[in-house]
């Protein structure tokens, strides 16, 4: 199996002002016989949105969990603001300033929304400041156009999208330096998705690094500065946000040489057109 081909897209030049806020080199992680991640390299700069894409089981969530301190990597190096760090548990990651929204959300269903938002960072630990926490929660959720009737009901009673909003709001509470979002818009409605994409841009403007995992190429292209493709647990190319759909799809699904595969696709398409024009309802894309 071939890995990244240089032709598949030159990594765009990083923002000139800085070093990566978070970088990984040669990170590997296996679960028993399954190598979920092999030799992963990844860099996130401040003021940058990196989209992480790949097929189901490509290892995106595993990578997210390694960064969040949920899983320990078997080998490789993680640097945060240039310093090598050992992210041994989630509290270390949070302490560094890495906030994560997990794919499975990781909320406590028995607690209410306010308690979930502030879990682990409650205001005044010996005399919880519920009033301040609740007003802050409303502010935060309004920012996300959340449609949550009451913050004092257990999270168990919320819809999937409402929970996702809560999980996203929680990641913002800590004033982190890097935000990692694992499929943040998967369950969201139209307005909320737009809000989250806006929010990602706002967060970027504040100078944060953002890693966003998504299967939705439209969302990815809307906000990402760079698109990193994982395939079967390995790096499979880095693309500009302007990369074409075919380029991305073939990197995700594993065609080794994109230009070749694109040509083949075009040629077979043309052949099909010639033999049976009626069978192709959509016109072939013009290539300038």
């Amino acid at each position, binding site marked *: 199996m071939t890995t990244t081909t240089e032709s598949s897209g030159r990594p765009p030049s990083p923002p000139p002002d800085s070093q990566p806020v978070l970088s990984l080199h040669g990170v590997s992680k296996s679960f028993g016989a399954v190598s979920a991640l092999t030799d992963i390299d990844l860099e996130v700069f401040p003021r940058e949105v990196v989209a992480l894409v790949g097929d189901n089981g490509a290892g995106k969530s595993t990578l997210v969990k390694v960064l969040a301190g949920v899983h320990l990597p078997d080998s490789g190096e993680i640097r945060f603001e240039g310093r090598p760090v050992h992210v041994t548990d989630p509290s270390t990651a949070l302490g560094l300033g890495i906030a994560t929204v997990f794919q499975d959300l990781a909320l406590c*269903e028995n607690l209410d929304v306010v308690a979930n938002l502030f*879990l682990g960072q409650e205001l005044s630990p010996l005399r919880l400041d519920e009033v301040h926490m609740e007003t802050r929660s409303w502010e935060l959720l309004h920012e996300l156009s959340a449609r949550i009737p009451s913050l004092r009901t257990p999270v168990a009673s919320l819809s999937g999208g409402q929970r996702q909003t809560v999980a996203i709001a929680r990641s913002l509470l800590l004033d982190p330096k890097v935000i990692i979002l694992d499929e943040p818009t998967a369950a969201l409605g139209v307005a909320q998705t737009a809000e989250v994409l806006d929010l990602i841009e706002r967060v970027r403007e504040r100078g944060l690094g953002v890693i966003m995992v998504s299967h939705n190429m439209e969302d990815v292209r809307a906000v990402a500065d760079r698109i990193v493709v994982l395939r079967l647990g390995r790096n499979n190319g880095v693309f500009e946000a302007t990369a074409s759909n075919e380029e991305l799809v073939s990197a995700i699904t594993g065609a080794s040489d994109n230009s070749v595969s694109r040509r083949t696709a075009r040629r077979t398409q043309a052949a099909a057109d010639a033999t049976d024009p009626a069978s192709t309802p959509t016109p072939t894309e013009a290539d300038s």
Partner: protein
Amino acid sequence: MSGTERTRTEPRRIDRLDDRLAADEGVAGAARAFGRRVRAGDLGALPVVVGLIIIWTVFQTLNPVFLSSNNLVNLLFDCCSVGVISLGIVCVLMLGEIDLSVGSVSGMSSAILGVLWVNHGWPVLAAAVAAVLAGAVVGLVYAQLFNRFGMPSFVVTLAGLLAFLGLQLLLLGQEGSINLPFGSTMVNFGQLVFMPPVVAYIIAVLAAAGSFATSAVIAASRERAGLTAKSMTFLALRSGVVLVLLLVVVWYLNRDRGVPWMFGVFAGLVLVMNYAFTRTRWGRSMHAVGGNREAARRAGIKVKSIYVSAFVLCSSFAALGGIFGAARLASSSQQAGTGDVNLNAIAAAVIGGTSLFGGRGNAFSALLGIIVIQSISNGLTLLNLSSSLRFMITGAVLAVAVMVDSLARKSRAAHGAA
């Protein structure tokens, strides 16, 4: 349209912007909200209070002595030991774990107290502190076995049940029991010291006033922040009811010997634990770990230290309960902490409304639950029923309590309020 109308009469609260929310304002609103919660399976203290009324009515009709001041004072005395143990059980149940060895640990603690104080001549306070510390060490050992080796808590504590019963027998040696000196502060505390009537009344008034003051302060600051707050009328009404209840109880007990100080200490511990569970980050973390351990870990909570705190508190309360029991019986014996102590402590917590499934519980469940358990035990003793029947009935009550817990849990899941 209705939205704008409401805005004109009263400023819209930031937590009442969603039109789908039922508006529960004022006293009537509080009552409606309560009714809705109960239907959704969030029963709170309701089943216990109903159960208690039934139990008291039945025993009172069978034996008029049951509700006499004298008998109720005895009942309160008998609540303290197992009640304190049950307070510790609430801590471990909150995490969805269990401690089956609290009886043995309480027995061990009473043996340590007897040996150090009576046999070795230690000051009584030092002996008591040593006994509680021994309990804390037991909890620490459990927590290490649980955290490091992933041993299920029921296995660890089942092993502890036998081991510490053995230690208790070893400490007590051949004689098998040590009599604690009558007339000593410790024994008086367990049998004879009561609050002077005036003090008891003052405490009752302070408790009601305190509950009103704290809730009024919260309501006022919510009001200032633009959040919905419980109305002052409702709070005053609630505290008024509490005050009347407390005054009636104190008055009734004062017709006999009065309110035992030991019970006062137990109630004080309940209040402290209630504060810790509801108003501190530690309490919030306990609920979180009990509800979803992995989510709590990912939120940065030190899950292992939460387990340590719960096991240590549980065993320490068990040891303290053992001391209360020794004071009550004026002896450290081989029987201390055996028999139904274990089960009663666990049953009390569950009957009081702490869930066996973790993530739900409160300190008052130990208080309410133990009053139910002791009422049954006391009533059956008054009827001269043998302990065999007592065991069977207590077992049945525990089964019913667990059934209510499971059903309420199902209903909560159906109503979206796990």
